[in-house]
């Protein structure tokens, strides 16, 4: 087989498959195979954890702790999401460039604005919320507000990017019709872009709320009340039955929000 034929053969999917295989082999080569993978007695510990599920801790005072922790998690998730939407929507509008698309506007200025807002959004979402919260705690101390803001930053970055894409996907004809009536940019945004993109905007926001619950749960890892914090406390005391109860509460909370969000998404799809 000539080099030319090899080159033709090794394109697209085959090259990708080869790349994936190499990447996996490389990652396995970085594992330290000298030391044992499991702890001594790890199997016994795993069994003990599994058996603790029958039954989980269901005493009344512990259930009360679970309910309070779930409410904390939900409240932080919703507070974080509301800031994220309040930041992400205006940034998304700026990044989409729909505001400045009037024909008389300067094209270079519009492109610079779009690019710089996009860069800002990318910077916000490049750092994980838990890294943000550790930085915030080190900088200004531990408080619920630090966790809420830490969650809001990357979420606003993601929301802004997706909002921008959804606004750009709005069909051009109705917007052009609105423009010919002499509507201002603000009017075009309020009566053209936003109403037409609303189903997509809302669906994605609800989907993110579901992720926000998980994020809020693990945020409490740094020491504010919430499901993650309670799980950490119970694990530290080796109270696996409590861990299971908390996990059940977490899964129930996520599934409830998932159900709500799919309900909303379904009622949006005409």
């Amino acid at each position, binding site marked *: 087989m000539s080099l030319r034929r090899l080159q033709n053969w090794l394109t697209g999917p085959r090259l990708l498959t080869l790349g994936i295989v190499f990447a996996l082999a490389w990652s396995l080569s970085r*594992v330290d195979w000298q030391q044992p993978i499991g702890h001594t007695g790890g199997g016994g510990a795993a069994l003990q954890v599994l058996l603790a599920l029958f039954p989980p801790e269901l005493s009344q005072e512990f259930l009360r702790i679970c309910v309070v922790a779930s409410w904390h998690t939900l409240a*932080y998730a919703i507070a974080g999401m509301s800031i994220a939407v309040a930041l992400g929507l205006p940034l998304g509008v700026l990044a989409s460039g729909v505001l400045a698309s009037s024909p008389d506007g300067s094209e270079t200025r519009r492109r610079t604005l779009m690019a710089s807002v996009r860069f800002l959004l990318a910077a916000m979402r490049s*750092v994980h919320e838990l890294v943000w919260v550790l930085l915030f705690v080190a900088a200004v101390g531990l408080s619920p507000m630090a966790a809420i803001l830490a969650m809001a930053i990357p979420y606003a970055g993601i929301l802004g990017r997706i909002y921008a894409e959804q606004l750009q996907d709005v069909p051009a004809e109705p917007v052009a019709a609105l423009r010919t009536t002499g509507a201002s940019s603000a009017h075009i945004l309020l009566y053209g872009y936003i109403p037409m993109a609303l189903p997509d905007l809302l669906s994605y926001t609800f989907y993110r709320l579901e992720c926000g619950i*998980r*994020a809020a749960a693990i945020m409490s890892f740094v020491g504010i009340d919430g499901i993650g914090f309670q799980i950490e406390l119970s694990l530290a005391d080796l109270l696996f039955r409590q861990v299971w109860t908390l*996990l059940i509460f*977490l899964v129930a909370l996520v599934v409830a929000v998932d159900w709500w969000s799919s*309900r909303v998404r379904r009622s949006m799809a005409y």
Partner: protein
Amino acid sequence: MERAGIGQSHPRDGARVRFSALRWSAYAAAMLVVAAWAFILLDGDSGFGDLFRQRTWQNAGQFVASLAGADSDGPSPFVQAARWRETGQLALNTLAMSVLAMGIAGVGALILLMPGARNVSDGTLGGAPSRTGRVVYAAVRVFYALTRAIPELVWAMLIVFFLSPGIIPGALALGIHNLGIVGRLTSEVVENLDPAPARALRAAGASSPKVLLYGVFPQALPLFLTFLMYRWEVVIRTTVVVGFLNAGGLGREFRLRMSWFHYDDVGLLLVWYLLLVIAVDVLSAQLRRRVRWD
């Protein structure tokens, strides 16, 4: 209750039912936002007032300066080649952890691809519908829901109990959580794909592996790989977080340096973190553009 039931049976009332569900959701969402903020602001020390104190912003400024190496004793780690090399090795471990996690999620999703799709279990895709198929389908979907609902970090907290620290426990925690996400998305792709090729193959007497290979994979694989790439972008950011729990890589070092107040070292680790994130974002975008199966 009865009136609602009658209303739903009329197609013309469908829009009204949908609308009321939306309106109800809007009210509920607004109430939740108010309740959450009222609770946070009224419940003791929320830290909200600190946002408007000069001291807070001074501290934040000082912290950023020390990240950049303003108050290092001795030479800043940013100018020491040895420190760059050491932390570079940690960054490679973090990258390896993310690749391995995607491998676990990808292989798992491929194995569960067919049993987790409704149109396979009920026979739409050719083949006979079977009770076993339906039970397996339900089990796979519950498994996906559970693995997805529990965050990576909680998986990692549980896994470090059994496995010794290193790349494997972190990759496993990330892999399990992402299996739930990628698996569900991929099964939905199979459910939405055009059943005609698979049925034609089946009718021509092709065996099940052949139907999978020629009827399902060509349509489903490009989207599957796209999902994997999108998740990889998320996973590389999360790998550091999982690393906090002694799982190795940049995360572990990050947490240690943080607790020793070696903020200049933390700054160096953050630089590596951002480099990894940017590299994976660029690579993923390139690969996603290339996944055209023709």
